[in-house]
């Protein structure tokens, strides 16, 4: 079958506990743009048990079609039945593009599916666009049009590469959460819902779930916060994060942290910003006592305004900060909180 017979932009609509993840909507937003350029439509692949009711909200966020794979084996995420579901959909419906969130689920599912359907997979993309490959014509090499060009950071965020997958279909990418924009929901929109079940027969690859331990507290998702007050090792102790919390409260922000803080057990992993944590794009990011290793800045440098406070004037955080203060956070932060309290009501 020719590559041109593969049609449509598909997204894996991740759900957990029958609740759609934010990344599903973000992927739909991007898929809609790509589908417009390709003059095709957007299909969401919805995998789970008892999930059909979620199809309407996928439609409101841009899905023209929803393929529902619903089976009791799919109640909780497990690599094998989910990989079977998604690769069966790909083999049956032959999409030209498949987008998956670069989440702890998608970064496991994506490679397994791409290997099963024998295509390429580009990880953790931050930019997706339709273009030519090669980008500029090369003598003696066919220039292919309407290719998915996938841009991603590599080398700890030090380099960026644009990748194409010219000879295999589908073109697959995992996409960093928090980067693509979801559309304003279209209230009342309906998608064509297709139910599809390839059959699920447990085999050696069906891993048994012995227990599920939820770790989430009721804290705000730092990816949604407009103002983040982020602390690093320089804060000194778990207790001293109280002064950051006071600052956050005064300015209507949320506390986040660097990896060193999580490793020290001062703050939970869900508040970690950076390459092995979350990518954030707040309006204001306070980096307090954070040295600013590349692994950290990769997750926050897109913030609109970065204010850094650090006692070490050579700290690399000052290379990305808009406003840097060399000084003692223990003196500055409480005073700043007091001043803000006077102004912000």
């Amino acid at each position, binding site marked *: 079958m020719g590559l041109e017979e593969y049609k449509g932009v598909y997204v894996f609509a991740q759900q957990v506990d029958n609740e759609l993840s934010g990344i599903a909507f973000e992927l739909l937003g991007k898929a809609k743009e790509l589908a417009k350029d390709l003059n095709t439509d957007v299909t969401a692949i919805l995998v789970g048990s008892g999930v059909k009711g979620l199809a309407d909200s996928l439609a409101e966020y841009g899905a023209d079609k929803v393929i529902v794979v619903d089976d009791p084996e799919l109640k909780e*995420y497990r690599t094998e039945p989910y990989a079977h579901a998604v690769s069966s959909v790909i083999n049956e419906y032959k999409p030209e593009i498949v987008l998956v969130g670069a989440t*702890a689920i998608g*970064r*496991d599912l*994506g*490679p*397994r599916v*791409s*290997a*099963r359907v*024998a*295509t*390429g*997979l580009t990880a953790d993309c931050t930019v997706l666009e339709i273009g030519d490959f*090669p*980008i500029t014509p090369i003598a003696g090499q066919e220039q292919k049009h309407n290719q998915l060009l996938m841009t991603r*950071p*590599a*080398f*700890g965020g*030090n*380099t*960026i*590469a*644009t*990748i*194409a*997958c010219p000879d*295999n279909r589908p073109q697959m990418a995992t996409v960093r959460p928090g980067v693509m924009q979801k559309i304003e929901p279209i209230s009342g929109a309906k998608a064509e819902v297709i139910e599809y079940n390839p059959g699920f027969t447990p085999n*050696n*690859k069906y*891993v*048994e779930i*012995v227990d*599920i*331990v*939820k*770790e989430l507290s009721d804290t705000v998702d730092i990816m949604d916060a407009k103002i983040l007050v982020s602390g690093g090792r320089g804060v000194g102790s778990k207790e001293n994060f109280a002064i950051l919390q006071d600052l956050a409260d005064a300015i209507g922000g949320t506390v986040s942290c660097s990896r060193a803080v999580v490793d020290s057990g001062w703050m939970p992993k*869900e508040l970690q910003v950076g*390459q092995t944590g979350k990518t954030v794009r707040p*309006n*204001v990011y306070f980096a307090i006592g954070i040295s600013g290793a*590349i*692994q950290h800045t990769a997750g926050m*440098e897109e913030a609109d*305004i970065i204010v850094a*406070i650090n006692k070490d*004037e050579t700290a690399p955080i*000052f290379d*990305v900060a*808009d*406003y*840097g*203060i*060399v*000084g003692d956070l223990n003196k*500055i932060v409480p005073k*700043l909180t007091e*001043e*803000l309290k006077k102004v912000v009501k």
Partner: protein
Amino acid sequence: MKIVVCIKQVPDTKGGVKFNPDGTLDRGAMLAIMNPDDKAGLEAALRIKDETGAEVTVLTMGLPKAEEVLREAIAMGADKGILVTDRVLGGADTWATSTTLAGALRNIDYDLIITGRQAIDGDTAQVGPQISEHLDLPVISYAKDIKIEGDSVVVERQYDDRYHVLKAKMPCLITALSELNEPRYMTPGGIFDAFDAEITVWGRADLKDVDDSNLGLKGSPTKIAKASDKVRKGAGEIKTDLDADGAVVYIMDKLKEKHVI
């Protein structure tokens, strides 16, 4: 019990990244280290060895120089090292890399394969799950705890807001998080052994059930269209001479100027 740990030699981006005067990454000036997630995977294997007497083989694909990480692993306590190196394997993407490693693993007896979750140069987290697919094995990614129970492994698998305790019958493949453990240091005796240890070197011809069309740059479905060193955001203002009160005034002024408050 037999364990194979897949490891990769990577430039150290954590211990300070070096740039050339033109702003590009100076790879030559950066130390080559064992990838941290892989090292955690090796440590997990060595702990199983300590408990059960398992045999631990380390496998890497890379340039001849990658032999160094195999010797380091042996100095930590691994029993054997295998280096897969061949000109035709160069430029491989994750599909071609996982195909290559699977071709090598088909020659080795194993109950358990451990890889790192991801390497700090590529950060893809793809090669482990792809190897498991090629070998038709169960995979458990993002392991933060590994226990052996009879002929099964019981693993804590990390997700964003929870972890699952998963049980899989061996043979299976696990990808390790660096949070899994604190890797041990090389021992003096180990270093001595490592110098003497014979490293098995395999080339293209030693890979089992692998098609040439799936190897190296040519066999990679993903192609680089463009690569560039990242244009780094310029530094803004930095104030080194303000006391705490001055610093607060400065920050408040900026927040007002930008209409944050």
